[in-house]
């Protein structure tokens, strides 16, 4: 695998939060090293509070690592060049409730320098792709959770990104919604996009990802291909074993 194929590279990334006066510093991530390759779907697993969202935020530049290096798309994580080529769906997205679905995705597109009829057509196509044409002129405050997730996917794709970050995309969705979102992710895979996928729903990760990393209490306790991890049992067995091993260490 050449260096050009490494889309995400983390080397000994540690993150310590010091922002509570009178309280001890909190180590959220400890010496995380991993790579994600172009075109693959990488799943980051872990129980609640393991540090998955923080790791994604470091890759997006929302948070700076205390030590270590984080590279995305060949540049330091958070650089404008990198952010111009990636898409992001946050966990439990709360978007601008005063905007309609269409206005919101257009706004996101304008942040990439897009505009005019070209953007409008692109947005209409994206909303059709995620099945939101019927509600595109409704204000987001009237959307259901599933509808917000779909619009969130649309805004994450508005710039036709090379790399897509999805933070717990299935959370709160009903089975039909989860099936439809899974199909969208498979479509993105078939287009050659790299997907970085946070989740604690193992069945989704097992179905969609080629490689996974398992975080527990800020440490990367397991990392490799799904095939290797499931050689001795299910992904759930591997997950529980890795987390329990870390807990007893």
């Amino acid at each position, binding site marked *: 695998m050449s260096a050009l194929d490494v889309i995400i590279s983390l080397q000994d990334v540690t993150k310590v939060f010091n922002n509570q006066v009178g309280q001890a510093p909190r180590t959220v991530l400890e010496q995380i090293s991993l790579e994600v390759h172009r075109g693959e779907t990488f799943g980051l697993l872990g129980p609640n509070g393991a540090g998955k969202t923080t790791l994604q935020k470091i890759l997006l530049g929302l948070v700076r690592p205390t030590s270590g290096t984080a590279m995305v798309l060949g540049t330091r994580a958070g650089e404008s060049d990198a952010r111009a080529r990636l898409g992001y769906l946050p966990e439990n997205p709360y978007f601008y409730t005063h905007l309609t679905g269409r206005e919101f995705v257009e706004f996101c597109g304008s942040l990439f320098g897009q505009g005019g009829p070209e953007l409008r057509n692109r947005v209409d196509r994206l909303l059709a792709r995620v099945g939101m044409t019927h509600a595109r002129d409704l204000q987001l*405050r*009237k959307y*259901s959770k599933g*509808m*917000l997730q779909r619009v969130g996917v649309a805004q994450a794709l508005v710039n036709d990104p090379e790399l897509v970050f999805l933070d717990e995309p299935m959370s709160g969705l009903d089975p039909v919604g989860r099936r439809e979102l899974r199909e969208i992710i498979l479509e993105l895979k078939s287009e050659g996009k790299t997907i970085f996928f946070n989740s604690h729903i193992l069945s989704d990760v097992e179905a969609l990802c080629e490689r996974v990393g398992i975080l527990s209490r800020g440490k990367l306790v397991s990392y490799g291909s799904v095939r290797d991890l499931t050689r001795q049992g299910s992904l759930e067995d591997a997950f529980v074993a890795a987390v329990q091993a870390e807990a007893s260490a």
Partner: protein
Amino acid sequence: MVSVHPPGGTRRSRWVPELAIVSALMMLQAALVGHVHVVVRGPHAPLSLGLELAWRHVPTGFQNLLADTLWLRVLQHVGGQLGRDEPLNVTGVKQALDLAIDLDPAFHAPVEYGAWIIADGHDPAGALDFLAHARRQHPDDWLLPYHQAFIEFLYRKRYDDAARLFSLAASMPGAPPRVMNMVAGMYTKGKLKDKAIETWWGIHQANRGPLRAIAARNLRVLGVAVPD
């Protein structure tokens, strides 16, 4: 379809700033027309200032409006008494008018009418003091000593003080020549015949037309022969 409420901000919090804005506006309106004052204190209470006294020391760009509010309160307070045919109680009126012209020195109405309101309320000394305050702000306005002179004349019958003030007004820029007539008239009223004659004679010599004729007539009344 269920609306999703975002963390850290619910529908209710959107109403808080709106309620604050509407409440502030309503309070402003109430203060402007003195409703709060009337409701709390009743229509027969004297005019009294509380927090308003602090306005003098806190210029915020609303001085004009505050001065207007005070003037309207004075009018409503005095007008209400007149409307109910009550004896005029001007307690607090001078204080309100003093504050109004401190806040807005260019506000003419309180100066033009305020002194007369105070004098009508049997406080000519207060009226004179109020006009003295206005004169310190507008030292070149001939109307102010002119009004003071009338108050001395009509309310206190102090004709020599009235003559002095009319004379001062007459010497200021913009004062019309007829003001000297009042000087002479005050000397006459005060039984200062020599001074009256001297003043009328000066008016007679300095003017032509109606003023000269008036001066001639008054001189003849005082026993002075005046050629036609």
